[in-house]
């Protein structure tokens, strides 16, 4: 099986590096746009991660300060083969960006973005990304929204965001609610066992 073929550590490290190199080389739209491709590659194609891992990855990238692309690379690398994996994945994400942007900066210093054809094409790419993100949101929602409480909290967060409450504050609040509710749940199950 695929998993056996990639069992040796060097092979996995090489796979991690090439995958993130390719993702950074081809995916337009920043770190968030990379998430569906990471899911495609590591969950569906290689079956090295589960879709639950991806949900955890997204959760982590949104709560720990840092770039989404790098956070995701570190998370996947770490899950697959520890700190070596995260180093290799990060380097893989960095190299294409540095090469492409150095080339652009060298040959087109602040090139004017007035080519109508290119502008229209990129507007369509962004429309495509909108649709794909809609799908990602739908899949995430199916996993996350199961009880009334989930809907209530997510609804409150959306209202807070619409009215311009600081995003960092909202994230901290959401994490705090998660910790408190887990604490209460575990306390209840413990007291049930005792009685």
């Amino acid at each position, binding site marked *: 099986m695929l998993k056996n073929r990639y069992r040796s550590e060097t092979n996995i490290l090489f796979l991690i590096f090439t995958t993130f190199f390719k993702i950074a080389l081809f995916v337009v739209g920043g770190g968030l746009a990379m998430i569906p491709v990471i899911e495609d590659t590591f969950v569906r194609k290689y079956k090295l991660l589960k879709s639950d891992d991806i949900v955890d990855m997204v959760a982590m990238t949104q709560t720990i300060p840092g770039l989404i692309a*790098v956070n995701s690379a*570190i998370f996947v690398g770490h899950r697959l083969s520890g700190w070596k994996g995260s180093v290799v994945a*990060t380097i893989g994400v960095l190299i294409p960006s540095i090469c492409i942007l150095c080339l652009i*900066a060298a040959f087109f210093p602040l090139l004017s973005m007035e080519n109508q054809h290119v502008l*229209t094409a990129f507007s369509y790419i962004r429309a495509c990304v909108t649709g794909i993100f809609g799908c990602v949101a*739908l899949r995430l929602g199916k996993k996350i929204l199961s009880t009334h409480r989930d809907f209530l909290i997510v609804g409150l967060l959306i209202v807070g*965001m619409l009215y311009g409450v600081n995003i960092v504050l*909202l994230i901290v609040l959401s994490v705090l609610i998660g910790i408190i509710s887990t604490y209460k749940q575990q306390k209840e199950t413990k007291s049930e066992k005792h009685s």
Partner: protein
Amino acid sequence: MTHLILFMQFFKYGLLCLGGGYMIIPLLYEDFVAQTGFFTPAQFGNLLAISQMTPGAVSINAATYIGYMQGQVLDAIIASIGLVMPTFILATIALNFFKKHQNSTFVTGFFKGARWASFVMVLSAVVLFANMSVFSQPISLDSLTSFSLKYPELGVAIMSAVIYYRGHLSMMQLLVLAFAIGFGVSFI
């Protein structure tokens, strides 16, 4: 010495990215346009457009470009590594912590809470990209009732959503397809 200053400057930006690289754009504007005048506002706009349209993480692209403008290839590399370093340190510490205390109340609760927040952030990213493509003007609370749509783009968005959901094409193939459609449409 200038290399060290450049590194520290981008290290600081990396530390301040909460919820993704988009967060550093106002910081870059403050430091490179408003304070020092290194770029004019129009140049800065082009810089952002280039960073968004080229593959890879938007903030790494911006950092590389600014680094290159400060000097040469070496400065570009230093700026990008400086930007990435805080993320790397923080994420590694966090992941090791999570691994060690996998089943503790704190870590379980942390991820439970983080999942709600991440769902809302992905939703807001959908709105962000829709504002840049599907809607002719960015929607906000005040203009919820009076928005106008660009129908060709809306069509592409819905088409990509359906195709992607059914798993007929991978994301990469869809992006290439969308680029081709857009390029073709621009000649009509």
